[in-house]
């Protein structure tokens, strides 16, 4: 297990002003006051945490740093620790009704929105998932079950990949005969999803973390939106 270095000013290359600014962005989130109420230091969050069993990871340290408004440590945790979280929310059993998992959700969002290098690294290899969900409306599809993507799932992945088309046709629900999406999704539904991504600023987030992926997604979306009669997708 690699030890987490939380020594003071570990990221000396980033100014305190920038660390303060990022922390202020976290605190301005509408959820912040609902997920952080102080800390008894009881450690029940750590005892419940799956990631703490396999990584040098502590939801208690995160809740503590957030409550103390230790902006230097919060930057270190946002850079080096939050991506270890399993987002299971076992830590929600906190007697003070903190939710370290939700604090981490906010920290991750700020990291992505500001294009932190470590966020980009954490999302490496994740592009095909973002591509799938944003363009098809279904995150997981049968055609993802390929041996090179799941080598540790054994030989049955080969069997599924070899029989994919026919096994999908041998499913009784008519909506499940698809291979590129989990189920049959209407074109109108996908267009509505694109409009949501545009209207809520999610496209800007993607551009910040993976410009190449952003360009591909925009190309596909713009073509489909134009076909559907949307010439202008500015929604301000």
């Amino acid at each position, binding site marked *: 297990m690699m030890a987490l270095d939380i020594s003071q000013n570990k990221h000396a290359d980033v100014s305190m002003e920038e660390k303060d600014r990022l922390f202020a962005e976290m605190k301005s989130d*509408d*959820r912040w006051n609902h997920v952080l109420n102080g800390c008894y230091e009881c450690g029940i969050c750590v005892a*419940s945490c*799956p990631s703490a*069993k*396999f*990584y040098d990871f502590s939801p208690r340290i995160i809740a503590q740093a957030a409550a103390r408004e230790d902006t230097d440590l919060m930057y270190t945790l946002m850079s080096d620790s939050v991506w270890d979280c*399993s*987002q*299971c*929310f*076992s830590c*929600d*059993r906190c007697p003070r009704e903190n939710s370290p998992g939700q604090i981490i*959700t906010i920290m*991750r969002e700020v*990291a*992505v929105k500001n294009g932190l290098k470590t966020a980009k690294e954490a*999302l490496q290899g*994740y592009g095909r*998932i973002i591509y799938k*969900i944003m363009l098809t409306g*279904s*995150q*997981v599809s*049968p055609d*993802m079950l390929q041996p090179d993507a799941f080598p*540790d*799932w*054994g030989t049955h992945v080969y*069997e599924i990949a070899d*029989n994919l088309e*026919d*096994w999908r*046709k*041998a*499913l*009784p*629900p*008519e*909506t499940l*005969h698809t291979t590129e999406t*989990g*189920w*049959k*999704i*209407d074109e*109108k*539904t996908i267009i*509505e*999803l694109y*409009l*949501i*991504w545009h*209207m*809520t600023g*999610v496209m800007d*987030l*993607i551009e910040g*973390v993976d410009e190449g992926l952003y360009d591909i997604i925009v190309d596909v979306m713009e073509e489909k939106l134009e076909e559907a009669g949307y010439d202008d997708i500015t929604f301000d």
Partner: protein
Amino acid sequence: MLHLPILKAEDRKQVIDPANAPKEDLREELFQLEKEGELEVIRVPEPYMELTTKFGRKKKIPVEKTWHHKSCGQCGHIPGYSSSIFWLNREFGLDYHDPTDQTSCTAWNYYASATSNPEAQAAVAIRNFASAAEVGYFPLIHCGTSFGHYKEVRHALVHQPELRRKVRAIMEKLGKKLVLPEEVVHYSEWVMAMKDRIAEKQTIDMSNITATVHPACHYHKLIEEDAIYDSEIYGAQRSAIITGTLQALGVNVGDYSTWFDCCGFGFRHILVSRDFSRSFSVQRKIEVMKEEVNPDIVVTHDTGCVTTLDQSQFAGRAQDRKVGLPVMSDSQIAALAMGAHPYKVLQLHWHNTDNKAFLEKLGLDREKLWAEFESEVSDIRAGKKEFMTWEDAK
């Protein structure tokens, strides 16, 4: 050395009194917002069933007129999970809707990558709810993460006027209304509410089967007050979901010490850090179940849990770990108990861990049943039929 008796959870019963619940009843605020013209509430259609939640409130569970909010992970990689839910509805002759105007909740991506935000997540949820309302059906959520996430979205929309305003504006641009369901209902709650009717139609004796249960984190840890509890099951010290269903079917449920642990899915971990998922799943769940209970099967009720607990065992076997437990959903077990075909309906060939011993213990001729499925596939390959139909799956 002094030996003291160990108190078990079932020896203590949680006293549940809705009048003294520590958490609000969101439904009251929901109806108040509706009166104020802020949103519309989709009512649970009558007749409905009732189950008890953590603090004693009654939760309405629709019998039919259900709009099936499917799961991307279930439909994509373990499709027998979904087809078993539909099969149960059909066997009871219930009116249900399997929509094509439905997207993923997109929460898996959100929890994994944070490449989204609360407005987008809420808008995706409301777009799906509005789609259900437009056709006059009530949403029934198949995925545990969608269920937990939608409960959080509903909670946020009730408490955050600014978020409501933003989402209402988005919905207006899509030509839709801001609608929220009276209850957020998970399919496993529907299965549990139907358990006695399922048991009445049971054709396969399961009294020689022992199961361990994994309750999904996003089912009972997110908006915990909305999960199903029963004072007769674990003394209401933990959720009764799945266990109540299995007991009604005569299955023995074995307890194990790491029941509260997650499955190891981790959202981003199962995709890009699978060493964690594999290790956690095998060492903290499967091996503990084997050592403490040695069950015939693991039963759970969420997409990620079935996937992780099942798929992770392959690598565990290569390292001589104590693995080899088939993993299924409660919908598959309920359908199997009522005589559903293990391959045509449960689609067990999409699962990884060997289930031969489990099926044979139930007295099922696995080779004959597989041959029947293969015959259907051969007909499709030969062009004799385009698809396998519900009629073919009987």
